[in-house]
């Protein structure tokens, strides 16, 4: 029988584990794809959702405009009395799409309760000669509902000139176009940090690393096997996620493919280096889990994976922009939706690669083999 190459044998460990542990397969492939699917649907079909507002009617003197507005609304008697009776009316606009409103009949106390629970953003109170709107002025959704409803109730035609609206629904501007690159880079970070750090810590705590180091195994091959195996696994994960997004959401890459590959590789180098560094000492998997979370959790929240980090206070944005996940996410997004090329991403790619190499060198210096 032929002799087996030790590097190939070491790489095979990772693939075998990947294929044989159903949990790993779930978290690395099914989870990101279903997250893309759920979030993509939830945020892209927003125009079909029904917005609820509370309505406090005046039993004696009715407001003409409001009654006129509600005259063609559908009145629904809530049969099981799980909630109040309501009117439902859809405002149709060829450019803005459909917006449905549900007017829940209640009193002032009930309306405030609904508002506190977040079921409604706006309370309408009917007076004989006017309609008063109660809402939180810093809530943009409430403001939006106020603008649309107040104008609709006044003249039953939207006051804004629809001619001046030009809908931007082409590819690249939807939420899903923002989300997919974010999910992809988050997948790279999680796959590398959990895949490399956790595996190294586990091998150390099982004394398997000690046992392997006691053979003529080359330590460089041991670490290279982690990088090679994990790189190929992140490629598979990203390919599956992107294929799903291409087929299901018809996303497209506007910029250059080589630029995307460059930033993808640089991100892999960065997070592999970080993974080796944080797992260089500990043999305790609980400490390891903590360390990995300390790195991944803040970046998942801050780096604009799901939502733009520009909503954070101005002072922290420059800090956020220097996080490795932000650099990778921003560059990947610029390729996907802004049409960036190699020139635009090369600085970030260089910084990420250097970061990875520095972390790797420090990690290797302090690495506890046994």
């Amino acid at each position, binding site marked *: *029988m032929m002799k087996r190459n*030790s590097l190939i044998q070491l790489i095979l460990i990772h693939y075998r*584990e990947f294929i044989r542990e159903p949990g790993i397969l779930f978290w690395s492939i099914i989870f990101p794809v279903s997250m893309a699917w759920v979030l993509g649907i939830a945020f892209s079909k927003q125009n079909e959702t029904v917005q609820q507002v509370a309505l406090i009617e005046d039993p004696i003197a009715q407001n003409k405009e409001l009654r006129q507005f509600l005259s063609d609304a559908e009145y629904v008697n809530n049969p099981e009395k799980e909630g109040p009776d309501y009117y439902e009316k859809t405002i149709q606009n060829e450019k803005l799409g459909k917006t449905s409103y549900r007017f829940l009949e209640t009193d002032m106390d009930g309306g405030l309760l609904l508002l506190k629970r977040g079921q409604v953003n706006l309370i309408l109170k009917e007076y004989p000669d006017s309609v008063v709107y109660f809402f939180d002025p810093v809530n943009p959704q409430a403001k939006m509902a106020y603008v649309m409803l107040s104008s609709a109730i006044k003249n039953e035609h939207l006051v804004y000139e629809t001619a001046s609206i030009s809908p931007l629904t082409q590819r690249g501007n939807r939420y899903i176009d923002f989300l997919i690159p974010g999910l992809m880079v988050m997948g790279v970070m999680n796959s590398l940090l959990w895949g490399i750090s956790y595996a190294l810590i586990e091998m150390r705590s099982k*004394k398997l690393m000690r046992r392997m180091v*006691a*053979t*003529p195994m080359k330590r460089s091959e041991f670490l290279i096997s982690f990088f090679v195996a994990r790189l190929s696994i992140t490629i598979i994960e990203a390919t599956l996620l992107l294929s799903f997004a291409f087929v299901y959401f018809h996303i497209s890459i506007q910029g250059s493919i080589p630029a995307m590959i460059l930033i993808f590789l640089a991100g892999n180098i960065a997070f592999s280096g970080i993974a080796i560094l944080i797992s260089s000492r500990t043999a305790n998997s609980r400490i390891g889990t903590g360390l990995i979370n300390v790195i991944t959790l803040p970046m998942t929240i801050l780096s604009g994976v799901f939502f733009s980090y520009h909503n954070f206070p101005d002072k922290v944005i420059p800090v956020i922009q220097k996080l490795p996940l932000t650099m990778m996410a921003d560059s990947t997004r610029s390729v996907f939706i802004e049409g960036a090329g190699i020139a635009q991403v090369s600085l970030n790619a260089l910084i990420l690669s250097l970061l990875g190499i520095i972390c790797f060198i420090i990690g290797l210096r302090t690495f506890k083999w046994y």
Partner: protein
Amino acid sequence: MRAVDGLDLNIREGEFLALLGPNGAGKTTLVEMVEGLQKQDSGEIRIMGLPWKGHEVYLRSQLGISLQETRFIDKLRTREILELFASFHHIDGSRVDQVIEMIRLKDKSRAFTVNLSGGQRQRLALGIALLNEPSILLLDEPTTGLDPNSRHEIWDILMEFKRNQMTTMILTTHYMDEASFLCDRIVIMDQGKIIAQGGLDELLSQNQSDEIIEFFPSGDPGKLGIESMPWLKKYSFDSDRNKVTLFVTEILTALPDIMKQSEVRGIGMGGLTCRTMTLDDLFISLTGRRLVE
């Protein structure tokens, strides 16, 4: 705190040596220093005449090691683990087959390591140690925690290996039967020091007496007046177990005297046993403690 202190030990080529001692005696520290996995603060270790420094690659290729409880990657198969370690030694697949045969895991060669029993896992660890046909085999408690059957299986494998190969073996254990069954020379360690060494017979004969009388007295054993008897080598009373252990020159002369005293003083002797000395007794007589707590 020193785990191993002022220790001088020479092991001959082809010798099977047991490091016997209780937990915490410093056996693992000593073996791992020989394996190059721990560094001594002072002193020198030479293997086949070579120090670790500058000869790592060669020495690693010559050693076969089984650590105290190694766990493997759960979802790798027995054969895959052996192939992985074989690849580090540049060994081909036919040797892997041989080793699987030797460690009697042929029917488990496709089983995931997570599904192996404790004994099977220890045999796999032993198989990894044997892959490179080592010049020196270092086994750290290869049978600890195993049931008697699994222990005997490991002993059989090692005896078979001993017959066929010119290998030096160092084995740590706290089972005296394991040390006496497998090894030519036994080194008894306690608190980082060697307290006795030699072949089994040598150890038992050179250290004080050969014969032992044990019983459980029904009253105060001090009243028996045994301590002034001429045949007494050593007297010990374990008050927790209420057990008297006498190391005597000859049972035949000692026993009638004891029986007589027992009758005169009215102190009964339950569970009376007479036997020759074992390593366990030797350890008690040397340290005052038992080998396995």
